[in-house]
């Protein structure tokens, strides 16, 4: 194996993908060898040792890159581990995930991010990119050692206190400025804390009737407005996590028109679900930021289609069942998303005609890789590029069953819904982690990983 460049390991097997529709357009063959795409074109000659995969009717896309995943390890291995979370990711069509920093201990030191990075390497299902905390312990008081995390073996470029907002304007300003030293980005969880004390759901007609404390749109929008102005003032890169309101889309559009270096993310659940579901008081619909109204859903879809919102991030947040089988107010916030993201985005954006598959690749792979500075991901499907490729059957339909998921989390808000799209195969660095819509094997380099991290 190649320890000098573990991102391009020598996968032993050659694969020839026949008749895939590249980004949903022209049909071509793809030859994968040694971790790379070595040829793309019609009717390629099959090398003698090649495994041939018939991809007629399937769409070839770059492997999806999630900028927002909660893998829960270290600390809450009952909810998810790097192993189970990355299996879920591979099944969902991802070849890279960014592991959020709110583990226990918090990923606020080089040691913790290197641990998560190593666990990801050992698992071998996807590229695990740790996100570093902005502040020590996510407490919002003192900057974490961002430089040490950036320089660590995990090469952290995305920093976030996700789950908590960096609400102190001075701290946010300094963080934005500081990460310019290594082209980092601050991914903000935009939530004004005082306006959302005890908040349980979107503040609106439904919360008024249900008697649940409201999480007003203005609590998100006021922080985004402040942050885009700070980003403009400092010239820094700002990423806005899980945008959930129509007003936020307007503010980000305004900022982009002024050249502010801001990118924005929307979750699959905010593209599909509304606060009407909370009428059931079923905590599977409890999430932060909360499900909003149909008008917000419409604005988010339009924002994603016109590029105001740059990417889809899952905010995959698995929880043990006892944290959801309880009263609404006592329940944990969050929903799983890795294994349903593609289907929900196809359903909400592609099957509605708002976006094509090239647009899908842009928002789920190309742009998230650019924001996260992951050079080997989100690349064109062309000869010489890293072989992070997925094959998608867009005409398949399935009923979502959380009990069949690889994630430990059973808290999928899409349970029971029939959704389109199926990830038939996932190639991670040239190796099929998923074949025939089922887990295959982790990347072979991972078995050797433990030897050199020990």
């Amino acid at each position, binding site marked *: 194996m190649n320890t000098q460049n573990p991102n391009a390991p020598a996968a032993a097997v050659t694969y020839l993908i026949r008749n895939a529709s590249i980004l949903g357009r022209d049909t071509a063959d793809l030859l994968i060898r040694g971790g790379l795409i070595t040829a793309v074109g019609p009717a390629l000659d099959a090398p003698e040792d090649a495994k041939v995969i018939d991809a007629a009717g399937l769409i070839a896309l770059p492997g999806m890159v999630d900028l927002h995943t909660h893998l829960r390890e270290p600390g809450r291995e009952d909810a998810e581990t790097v192993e189970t979370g990355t299996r879920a990711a591979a099944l969902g069509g991802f070849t890279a995930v960014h592991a959020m920093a709110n583990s226990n201990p918090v990923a606020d030191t080089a040691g913790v991010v290197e641990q998560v990075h190593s666990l990801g390497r050992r698992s071998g299902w996807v590229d695990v990119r740790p996100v570093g905390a902005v502040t020590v312990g996510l407490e919002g008081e003192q900057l974490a050692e961002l430089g040490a995390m950036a320089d660590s073996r995990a090469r952290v470029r995305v920093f976030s206190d996700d789950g908590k907002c960096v609400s102190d304007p001075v701290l946010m300003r300094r963080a934005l400025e500081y990460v310019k030293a290594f082209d980092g980005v601050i991914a903000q969880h935009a939530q004004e804390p005082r306006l959302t004390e005890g908040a349980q759901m979107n503040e*609106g007609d439904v919360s008024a009737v249900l*008697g649940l404390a409201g999480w007003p749109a203005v609590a998100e929008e006021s922080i985004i407005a402040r942050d885009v102005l700070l980003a403009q003032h400092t010239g820094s890169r700002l990423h806005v996590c899980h945008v959930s309101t129509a007003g936020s889309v307007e503010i980000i559009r305004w900022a982009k028109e002024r050249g502010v270096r801001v990118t924005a993310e929307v979750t699959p659940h905010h593209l599909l679900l509304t606060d009407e579901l909370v009428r059931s008081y079923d905590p599977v619909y409890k999430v932060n930021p909360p499900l909003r109204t149909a008008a917000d859903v419409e604005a988010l879809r339009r924002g994603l289609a016109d590029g105001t919102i740059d990417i889809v991030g899952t905010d995959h947040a698995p929880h043990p069942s006892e944290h959801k089988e*309880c009263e609404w107010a006592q329940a944990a916030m969050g929903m799983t998303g890795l294994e349903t993201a593609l289907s929900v985005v196809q359903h909400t954006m592609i099957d509605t005609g708002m976006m094509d598959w090239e647009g899908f690749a842009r928002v789920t792979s190309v742009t998230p890789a650019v924001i996260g500075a992951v050079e080997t991901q989100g690349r064109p499907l062309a000869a010489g590029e890293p072989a992070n490729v997925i094959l998608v059957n867009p005409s398949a339909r399935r009923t979502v069953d959380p009990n069949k998921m690889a994630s430990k989390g059973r808290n999928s808000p899409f349970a029971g819904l029939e959704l389109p799209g199926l990830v038939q195969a996932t190639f991670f660095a040239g190796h099929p982690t998923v074949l025939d819509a089922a887990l295959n094997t982790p990347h072979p380099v991972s078995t050797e990983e433990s030897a050199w991290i020990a």
Partner: protein
Amino acid sequence: MRHLLSTRDLSRADALAILDTAEQMAAVSQREVKKLPALRGRTVVNLFFEDSTRTRISFEAAAKRLSADVINFSAKGSSVSKGESLKDTAQTLEAIGADAVVIRHGSSGAPARLAGSGWINAAVLNAGDGTHEHPTQALLDAFTMRRHWAKLHGTASTGTDLTGMHVVIVGDVLHSRVARSDLWLLRTLGATVTLVAPPTLLPFGVESWPCEVSYDLDAALETGPDAVMMLRVQGERMQSAFFPSVREYSRRWGFDDVRLDRLDTLGLKDTILLHPGPMNRGLEISSRAADSPRATILEQVSNGVSVRMAALYLLLSGENTPAGTATLENSQ
């Protein structure tokens, strides 16, 4: 109707069936022997996660008058305070053989969760959940108003609704489960409702609710309401800037002696004054108002037992229901 969780999803027929049955139950309470054998051998659990002596003893009296066995389960000092989940508590009650669970809980939706989760087969009665609903309080309020309204019109209560009645509800609507349950039920029964509160204590989007909204209690009284419902206000709300001081609240939104006298000046001799209790005398209601002949506060308490008897009876008595409650049984 298998459960009684809210008044919002209670049909007019269901509401009238409960109120009419409550009239029969009230007659029982007038007897020397205040007891019916209707629920003999059935077990009613009062599951109270919040302290509420008034509501608990009202439900207890109601169940006992129907000859049910009553178990009082207070979360304080129980396994719940040791971290037992609602699910485990519910399944324990199920294993004990509870036929009905009367639940009071600080979290909105906890009764709905209990009823809809499959943890338990017992009938669930919401005895107040967070800032969501308190349906039996609304039913006893409506029962009290209906008796007043029927008496004014020289008709029998049974079978009538509140068409034409105008009710003003005053106070902390935002945090009040009583206000919500009252509004939905009064509307279903044909009354018109005006909510009066400081703007800070009205729910977001209240303008879409089926009622008038006013910030001015005096202006609302000038419209000549038939009933005024004063809501309890927690003095500690001012710490969260909902109002500047208890005295300012009392001056602007309290039912004080001046406003009591104004009802006479306005010629509103038949306007009644309700309060769900417990009262903060001198804050949202003056002592003279609370003790005046207009006040129906103690009537509400005794009517509460009748209404809760009716609810328990209709939920637990299965096929053996009196005529006229078929719709109640068949709904949902």
